[in-house]
């Protein structure tokens, strides 16, 4: 979606053309849903987050000043909404701060059923086991294809933070997937023989 198209749509929306908002929904729904599902891991949560994002957009875009791209705005709002959703769920369920775990997902929903490859299913589960902040940066960069600057804009952090967070996130996922041995020094090293 070009910035020019965005500007035209937003301008039409501000002038009261409600079909412009429907067009904005159509263009961004899949992007928002994909971010929400990969961060939340649960289909129902992703549906709730997606609704929350667009209901927010209904109000917020009326005064959107267009200083960033509309897609960047959706990346940021979707990521924040998904992170909040996960944190609320974790507080409610007393789950570990960093892990969703499969046990919390009694009905994984159509998405995980649709993953046919065995490896992809393993990746799907491993992604749920890394910390939610790590998961967010992996989703935005490695799944959504944003570059470092775009991820920084979406997460509202400096590019340097994205660089180090993405690196730590990949290392964490690499350990979950068995590509790396646990890098943490063992607290109880084997005795010398």
């Amino acid at each position, binding site marked *: 979606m070009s910035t020019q198209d965005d500007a035209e749509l937003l301008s039409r929306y501000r002038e009261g053309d409600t079909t412009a*908002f*429907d067009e904005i929904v159509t263009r961004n729904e899949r992007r928002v849903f994909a971010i929400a599902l990969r961060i939340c891991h649960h289909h129902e949560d*992703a*549906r709730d987050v997606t609704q929350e994002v667009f209901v927010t957009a209904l109000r917020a875009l009326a005064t959107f000043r267009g200083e960033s791209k509309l897609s960047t705005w959706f990346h940021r709002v979707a990521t924040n909404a998904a992170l909040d959703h996960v944190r609320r769920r974790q507080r409610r369920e007393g789950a570990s701060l960093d892990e969703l775990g499969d046990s919390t997902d009694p009905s994984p929903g159509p998405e995980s059923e649709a993953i046919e490859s065995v490896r992809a299913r393993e*990746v799907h589960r491993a992604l749920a086991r890394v910390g939610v902040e790590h998961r967010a940066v*992996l989703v935005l960069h490695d799944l959504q294809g944003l570059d470092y600057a775009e991820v920084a804009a979406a997460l509202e952090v400096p590019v340097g933070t994205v*660089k180090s967070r993405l690196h730590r996130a990949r290392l964490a*996922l690499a350990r979950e997937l068995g*590509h790396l041995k646990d890098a943490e020094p063992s607290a109880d090293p084997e005795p010398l023989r």
Partner: protein
Amino acid sequence: MPPHDELDLLSGYLDEELDQSERARVDAHLPGCAECRETLAALRATVSDLKTLPTPEPTEQDSWALRSAIARARKPSKAWQRALFASGAVAAALVGIIAITHQGSNKHETAGIAAAPDHTVQLYGDAQNFDTLGAHNYFLSVIGVAPTNAPIPGALPAQAPTRGGKSTATNQEARSFYTYDMAESSSEPIDSATRRQLDRCVRIVRGQTQELLTPFRYETSSYNSTQAFFLIFKAPSRYEFWVMSRATDHLCDVLYFAQS
């Protein structure tokens, strides 16, 4: 092994996001460092694994739920706001057209507001031309009350009820027909002439009462062969159902009224 901060640059190296000097450092460091080479390979494999994940797609139900949520959240349009604050002059002209309350439905008063179903609604009668019983059952189904077979007392105009075929429609199937939030929803835009008619009818209904009536659903259909609006409003403790003529020479005449 001496500390080597090149390890922390490996993701940036993989993504080609390092500046020239950092990249040169990593290039010089890698041949002599097995740990960094292994880590780089692990990062590559991890990124490659992530690519195996399909892009999740919202289902049709998700999309429908999203659009319903948006329609619910939409503020009343300017036209509706104008209607709300319009003078009661037009409404005064309607005094004397007294709507008739369907006493039989009073028992549903407490079944009430919260019961409105969102998923499955029964359709009775000819969906293109409702008779009185059909219209009344349309109302009951929208507010989540079991349909009635009893003749509707006091219906205007009086007509022997005729039951038509019965069908069950899912939310999505029924959407184009009557599941239409009165809060402006442009997923099925209506033309401006119809919108003006609708505004006028709503203004008249609201002029009848001091209570706040919130538009809930509307449908454009036919009632005993007269083009009509089916308007359902939420009042604080009940629903009101107004069938009003759309015929140009009888615009907004009340053809039928019921409340829960």
